[in-house]
C-alpha cells in the first residue's frame, strides 16, 4: 500500500487562483521524491495539502490508505504529529535555544498544557541530544537560533522533524536559501535519513541538477498540473524546458531562482 496517494486533487484559492489541477500520483514507503517546477507552479500547495496546512478543494488524498481531506481536528493533529516538515526559511523560533526548538517536534505528542509550558521528559531531552549529535550540533545546543548560520538552522529544522518520529518528511525548498556547500550538507543528511531510517521524503526543489543527483524519482509540475513523473534518467532536456516553460537553449540549472 502506498504511503501517500493523491487522487485527482485540485486546489483553488479564493475561487479564482488555480494552484493545483487534477493532480494524481502515489508514493511508496521509503521513496525519495523530488518535485520540480517554476515558482508559483503549485509545489508548495501540493506539500501543504498533505499535512492539511492547506485544504484541497477537490479530490482525495490518502495517507496510509485513509482519506485525510475530510479529517477532523483530532485526526489532523494525528497526521501532523507523524509528518515532519522542513521549510525554506527554517521557521524556527529564533529567540529560543536550539534544544528547545528541537523539542518542539514533540508538541504534537504531548498534552496541551505540558507542551505549552515547555515541560518535556528527560527521555525526550536525551533523544533530542542524540538527534543533535547525529546532525553535528551538540555544541550549539544551548545557543539561541538567531546565532546560527543558515545551514545550521536548517539542520535544527531537520532535527525538529526527526523528533516527531515521522514516517514522512515534507521538505519545502530546503536548500533554496543556502550556499552550495551548506546545501550539499543538508541534502546529504536528508538522503541519509531516507536510507538509514527508511523515512519517506518528498522535496520541493528549484535546482534540477540537485533533484536529478539525489532522487530516483522526479515529479515535474507546471501551472498546477503534473507534466512529468518518472526517473531522472528519462527526464530529457526538452521535458525540463516544458516544465519550466523556458525556450530551448536557456540555462536551466538553478532555473527559477
Amino acid at each position, binding site marked *: 500500500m502506498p504511503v501517500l496517494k493523491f487522487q485527482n486533487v485540485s486546489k483553488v484559492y479564493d475561487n479564482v487562483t488555480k494552484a493545483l489541477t487534477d493532480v494524481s500520483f502515489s508514493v511508496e514507503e521509503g521513496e525519495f521524491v523530488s518535485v520540480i517546477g517554476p515558482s508559483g507552479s503549485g509545489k508548495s500547495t501540493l506539500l501543504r495539502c498533505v499535512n492539511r496546512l492547506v485544504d484541497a478543494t477537490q479530490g482525495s488524498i490518502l495517507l496510509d490508505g485513509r482519506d485525510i481531506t475530510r479529517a477532523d481536528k483530532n485526526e489532523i493533529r494525528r497526521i501532523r504529529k507523524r509528518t515532519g516538515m522542513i521549510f525554506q526559511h527554517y521557521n524556527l523560533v529564533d529567540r529560543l535555544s536550539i534544544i528547545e526548538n528541537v523539542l518542539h517536534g514533540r508538541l504534537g505528542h504531548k498534552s496541551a498544557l505540558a507542551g505549552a509550558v515547555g515541560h518535556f521528559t528527560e527521555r525526550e531531552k536525551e533523544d533530542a541530544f542524540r538527534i543533535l549529535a547525529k546532525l553535528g550540533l551538540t*555544541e550549539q545546543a*544551548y545557543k539561541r537560533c538567531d546565532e546560527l548560520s543558515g545551514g545550521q538552522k536548517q539542520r535544527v529544522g531537520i532535527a525538529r522533524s526527526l523528533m516527531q518520529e515521522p514516517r514522512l518528511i515534507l521538505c519545502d525548498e530546503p536548500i533554496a536559501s543556502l550556499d552550495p556547500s551548506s546545501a550539499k550538507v543538508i541534502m546529504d543528511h536528508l538522503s541519509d535519513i531516507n536510507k538509514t531510517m527508511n523515512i519517506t521524503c518528498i522535496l520541493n526543489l528549484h535546482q534540477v541538477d540537485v533533484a536529478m543527483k539525489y532522487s530516483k524519482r522526479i515529479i515535474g509540475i507546471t501551472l498546477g498540473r503534473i507534466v512529468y513523473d518518472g526517473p531522472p534518467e528519462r527526464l530529457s532536456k526538452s521535458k525540463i524546458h516544458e516544465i519550466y516553460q523556458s525556450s530551448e537553449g536557456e540555462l536551466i540549472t538553478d532555473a527559477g531562482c
Partner: protein
Amino acid sequence: MSGLVVADAAPFALDLQKYMHKNRAGKIKTAAMSKNGFAVKLTVLVLLGLTLYGFATFDYKNIDIAEAVAGTFDNIKTMFGRPRLSYNTLAGALKALFVTFSLGALSTVFGAVIALFGALFCAKNIANPKAANIIKSFVAFIRAVPTILWVLIFTVAAGLGSVAAVIGLTFHSAGYLIKAYAESIEEMDDGIIEALKASGASFWQIVFQAVLPSSVGYMIAWTFLRFEINFTNAVAVGAAAGAGGIGFDLYMAGSHYFDLRELGFITYMIVAAVIALEMVASKIKSRVG
C-alpha cells in the same frame, strides 16, 4: 520513542552527557543562556509589581465602582446610540472641525519646516556629531513637556487663541519629525553622498541634489502620519485648554451643557475625520514606501 532513534543511543550516550547542562535536581536544562530572556522576564515582573503597588496605593475616594460602571454604560448607550446636535448647528460643528483640521495642518507645516533643517544637522551620515547631540538633547527636552502644558504656557505668554495652540502643537511635531526625517536621511545609500563629496559638492549641493530627492518620499509619509496625530492633539488641546475648534465644542457639550447626545454626535464626527486621515496616510505610506 521509536526504535530507530533509540537504536543509535548506546554509542553516543556517554559523550552526550558532557554537552548537557543540568539543574540542581539533575534534570537537563533546555533554555538558552541569554541575558535577553532574563531581562524580558525581569521587566515584565517589575511592571506587574508596580501595577499591583499602584492599585494598592491609589486614592479611590470610596467610589462605588459598580454604580459608576453601570452609569457609564448607560451614558455610552445614550451617547453613541442617539447622537444629535442641539446646542450646535451642523454647519457650526463642521466649521469647528475644519478649524481643528487647520490647526493640525498649520502645526504640521511649521513642524515640518523646522524639522527639515533640524534633521539635516541631526542625521548621522551628513551632520556634525556635536551639533547633532545638542539638537537631540534639545528635542528630548521639548518632547518631555506634554503638549497641553506648552499650549497653556504659551496661552499666558502670548494670549489665548490660535497662536498659543499652533506653537504648542508645533513644538512636539518638530521634535517628532526631526527624529523621523533624520532616520529617513540615514537610510539613504552612503555611496551617493560619497560620490558627490568626491566631486567637490558643497553641503547644500549635497542636500538638494542627493539627500532630499532620495528621502522625500519617506518624509512625506512621516509628515502625513504626524498630521493625523496633530489633528487628534488639536482636538485634545481644544478641549483642555479652550483653544477652539471641535475639541472646545466637545468640552462644552460634555462638561458645560452635560449633553451626552451632542457629545456623541461630535465624537462621531471626530472619529470619521480621524479614520479618513488614517486611510489617506496609509495610502500615501504604501505608495512611497
